[in-house]
């Protein structure tokens, strides 16, 4: 062992270039693998910190409605848990109604915090650790408030939180809560602590007041997140099997009297699976894990290739050791041992690289990854296992080749073996594998980047720049007249071109409503409708395809007011709705009738506005015009078109104006670009950046290996080159010969990579309704890049040898 260590150390210290290639390449591969494995573990490990997570399930609603794509919702009607408890005795269930709480601070300012109104059984299902108080009594009183440690620090400071009274305005109603328990802060990878998830910084009991929430028992409404908990997966499956009958028993009937389960079904989703439930999420995360594994594979291939290429240089050592009595097994152990040592060194260097790179990775990927060395999530044990496995995988083939040399043949020959023709073919095959992976990853990167760019700039049917959403406009503390007053003040802010309010806005889903509609005598289908205020279409820059936009000049355009719903009003359709309803063209839809409760008349058709996820097709939309106040069951969002003013300056001005009109309601706004990015694009962009970084590094590792291989191979062929030059070959001819040797596997790699990349990227793009065409340019560019990298990598080595004098080359051996 000591001999092995000494010999190994000398090999590295005497050949720093080789050491850098071998250990450095492997270290880079391990670093990429570890970072992406950490990312995958983070993304797939949501809520696994909590032992009860696997026993707890989110109830999902699945809608199968005529005329619209099937959809899934993480929310259910509010009364679902109550109905289920009545039908399933002993069911352990609860619900969370996500809301924003408004707190007035000592300095008079108001802040918003994610708030959960929950069922009294909450802590029986979510048996999360408490820092203070008792779970049994935490929600016993309707005025009890459970807050997180960080919430307590922020708003109570160092004082003891238990028993303190905090007045919080929830859904427009101020309530004096008394802190009954303090919840330990939830980790970063919890769906209950993630922006966009069911965030809970403070928890209180929900109080149902009849008449206050008319949709509370309405199937299809999305009031709460409902959860059930079972001791075993079998019990969960048994419960899920009874849901169809439950829905048909308890649910309403469809418009044609069909059972509810033909429209709505429910499934159970384990809490740990909540985080990656959106379409494409899990596949993307898995793909990133695969990129990490492929980068490591390329690095391992490098090691194998360099080790077997170097075999020529070590043949004499093997022969001498065999002559001195070493068995083949002992030599194989030595070479595997060297591979394990190399991997161990590379793992150490890789860990250092990970530490250095993590801040950048977190910035790129929007993550909060950090290395933990020991303990349950420690990296040391998995890394030791990785070292053993990678060391064995990387070492076995070179060990088999090296230990098989026949000492007599090696010692008798002036030439040294390099694994023979088979060895050369294996090396060439491995280069094909490396470059096929590198080319496929490059194609993937090009397509991902193009798609993400496309999403940022694609025509969404409205003008997304110069547009700001006032998201606090939906605060439950505001009523219709207040909103109209606020809107009037906002319109007067310098830089504001126009402002409007509507139930619909980009990346704003809270108030969308869908219902069955039809042309008289036609087929019934589900159409999403929204109330829109004056200037809605001009604020968004919608494109009118036919007819006209609604206006206060036409009395029949107004949808609010007594009797409007019964007598029918003028409406605007989007192109998809017009098409789905069977109108041959937008123009033919004008004057057409669309029946909901009453028969409405179509006065305009606009181009589809892609307000929601680029992964989903645009829903058929019908717009009701409302010139007056918007109150009622749903709260609208305001949109402001601005020009000639910096968004930050505008935001400050809007805030001032807002607080003048509604001092007790905190102001919140976001540009449409930012809102779309936050809700729909950012995750893909972040993952694309990680993919790109992983792919680029994988290509670099592959090129490093090719460089090393070229160096060894060129060195081995010095004598051959000398002979060729003596026979009259020019430098250019020698160069072509040497570069051609390495170009061949790279060209073959294209044949392997193209179909794989095409299938993978086509499948990924299919997840987007808006997507780029998968044209040949991505493939050609990736291949040209690979060829260029290969040529540049090999050229330096080859040029030096090709130019040397033949006499020197012949003296070399």
């Amino acid at each position: 062992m000591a001999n092995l260590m000494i010999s190994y150390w000398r090999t590295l210290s005497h050949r720093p270039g080789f050491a850098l290639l071998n250990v450095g390449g492997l270290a880079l591969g391990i670093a990429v693998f570890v970072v992406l494995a950490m990312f995958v573990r983070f993304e797939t490990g949501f809520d696994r910190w909590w032992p009860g997570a696997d026993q707890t399930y989110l109830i999902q609603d699945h809608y199968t409605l005529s005329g619209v794509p099937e959809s899934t919702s993480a929310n259910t009607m509010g009364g679902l848990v109550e109905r289920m408890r009545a039908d399933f005795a002993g069911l352990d269930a609860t619900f969370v109604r996500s809301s924003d709480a408004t707190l007035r601070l000592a300095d008079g300012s108001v802040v918003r915090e994610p708030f959960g109104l929950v069922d009294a059984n909450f802590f029986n299902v979510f048996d999360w650790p408490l820092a203070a108080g008792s779970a049994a009594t935490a929600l016993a009183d309707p005025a009890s408030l459970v807050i997180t440690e960080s919430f307590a620090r922020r708003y109570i400071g160092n004082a003891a939180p238990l028993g303190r009274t905090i007045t919080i305005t929830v859904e427009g109603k101020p309530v004096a809560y008394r802190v009954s328990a303090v919840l330990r802060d939830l980790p970063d990878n919890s769906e209950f602590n993630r922006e966009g998830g069911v965030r809970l910084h403070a928890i209180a009991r929900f109080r149902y007041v009849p008449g206050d929430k008319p949709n509370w028992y309405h199937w299809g409404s999305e009031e709460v997140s409902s959860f059930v908990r079972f001791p075993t997966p079998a019990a969960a499956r048994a419960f899920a099997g009874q849901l169809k009958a439950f829905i048909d028993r308890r649910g309403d009937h469809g418009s044609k009297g069909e059972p509810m389960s033909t429209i709505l079904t429910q499934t159970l989703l384990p809490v740990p699976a909540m985080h990656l439930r959106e379409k494409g999420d899990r596949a993307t995360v898995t793909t990133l894990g695969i990129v990490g594994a492929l980068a490591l594979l390329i690095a391992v291939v490098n090691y194998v290739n360099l080790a077997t290429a170097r075999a020529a240089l070590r043949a004499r050592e093997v022969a001498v050791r065999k002559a001195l009595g070493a068995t083949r097994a002992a030599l194989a152990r030595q070479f595997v041992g060297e591979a394990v040592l190399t991997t161990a060194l590379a793992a150490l260097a890789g860990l250092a690289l990970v530490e250095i790179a993590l801040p950048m990775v977190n910035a790129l990927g929007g993550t909060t990854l950090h290395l933990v060395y020991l303990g349950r999530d420690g990296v040391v044990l998995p890394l030791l296992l990785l070292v053993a496995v990678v060391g064995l995988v990387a070492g076995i083939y070179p060990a088999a080749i090296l230990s098989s040399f026949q000492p007599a043949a090696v010692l008798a020959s002036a030439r040294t073996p390099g694994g023979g023709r088979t060895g050369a073919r294996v090396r060439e095959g491995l280069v094909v594998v490396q470059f096929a992976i590198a080319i496929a990853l490059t194609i993937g990167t090009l397509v991902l980047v193009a798609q993400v760019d496309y999403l940022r700039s694609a025509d969404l049917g409205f003008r997304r720049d110069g547009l700001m959403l006032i998201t606090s406009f939906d605060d439950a503390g505001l009523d219709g007249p207040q909103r109209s007053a606020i809107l009037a003040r906002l319109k007067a802010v310098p830089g504001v071109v126009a402002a409007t309010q509507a139930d619909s806005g980009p990346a704003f889903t809270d108030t969308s409503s869908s219902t069955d509609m039809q042309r008289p005598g036609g087929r019934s289908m589900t159409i999403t409708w929204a109330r829109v205020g004056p200037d809605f279409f001009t604020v968004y820059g919608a494109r009118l395809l036919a007819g006209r936009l609604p206006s206060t000049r036409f009395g029949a355009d107004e949808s609010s007011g007594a009797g409007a719903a019964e007598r029918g009003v003028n409406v605007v359709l989007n192109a998809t709705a017009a098409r789905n309803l069977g109108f041959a063209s937008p123009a033919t839809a004008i004057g057409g009738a669309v029946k909901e409760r009453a028969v409405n008349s179509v006065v305009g058709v606009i181009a589809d506005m892609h307000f929601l996820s680029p992964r989903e097709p645009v829903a058929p939309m019908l717009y009701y015009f409302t010139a007056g106040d918007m109150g009622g069951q749903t709260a609208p969002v305001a949109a402001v078109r601005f020009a000639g003013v910096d968004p930050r300056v505008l935001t400050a001005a809007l805030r001032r104006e807002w607080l003048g009109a509604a001092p007790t309601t905190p102001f919140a706004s976001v540009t449409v670009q930012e809102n779309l990015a936050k809700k729909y694009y950012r995750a893909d962009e972040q993952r694309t950046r990680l993919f790109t970084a992983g792919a680029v590094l994988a290509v670099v590792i592959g090129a490093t290996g090719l460089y090393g291989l070229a160096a060894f191979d060129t060195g081995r062929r010095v004598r051959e080159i000398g002979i060729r030059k003596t026979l009259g070959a020019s430098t250019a001819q020698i160069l072509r010969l040497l570069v051609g040797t390495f170009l061949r596997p790279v060209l073959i790699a294209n044949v392997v990579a193209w179909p794989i990349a095409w299938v993978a990227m086509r499948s990924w793009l299919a997840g987007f309704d808006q997507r780029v065409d998968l044209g040949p340019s991505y493939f050609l560019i990736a291949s040209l890049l690979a060829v260029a990298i290969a040529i540049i990598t090999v050229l330096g080595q080859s040029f030096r040898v090709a130019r040397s004098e033949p006499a020197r080359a012949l003296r070399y051996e």
Partner: protein
Amino acid sequence: MIALEALSRVYRSDEVETTALNDIDLEIATGEFVAIMGPSGCGKSTLLNLLGTIDRATSGRYLFEGEDITRRDEAALARLRRDRLGFVFQSFNLIDDLTIEENVALGLAYRPGTGRRGAVAAAMDRVAIGHRARHFPHQLSGGQQQRAAIARAIVGEPQLILADEPTGNLDSENGGQVMDILGELNREGATVIMVTHSPAHADRARRVVHMLDGRIALSAQRAAA
């Protein structure tokens, strides 16, 4: 000690069959110093490789101390080399990345047991290379490298020393020193079989085996000096 009976070695490739050794019969007694001579390609090194068990005969028998080792498995032959044979090569074959001391220690590396440091030092002193123990092979002259190689060969106190043109890469002075060492080892009881092109060095042996075209042309016993 050694008996070869009708030993042949044929190399076959796709189209060519080369008989390197043809029906060799040879006996070598314990304590002999045998020189093998002959023109290039006559099979001298092949014979030495077969004697050293780093190559296998195509036919015939190889008896080592009365035991037929012709068909012994690789591991058994490795043990035989480890415990009883020592090799000296024309091109030294020291491992570049190891110091002289470590190269010499390699002669014991595959043996079980401890207490090697003393044996290594003794072997180096024996060939007067101890002062170069911490140097690497490329820092030594050819003669010093060959003395180090001899130290490696004798560190395990082998019964049989096989030397393939041990002076081939050395000047006459260094060559003479190497031959002195081999002669001394032989006098101390080791059997030495040496391939050489040098008649002067062959004169140091008690028997000279002349080879031609893969056969033993003449085996001549020299009178004791």
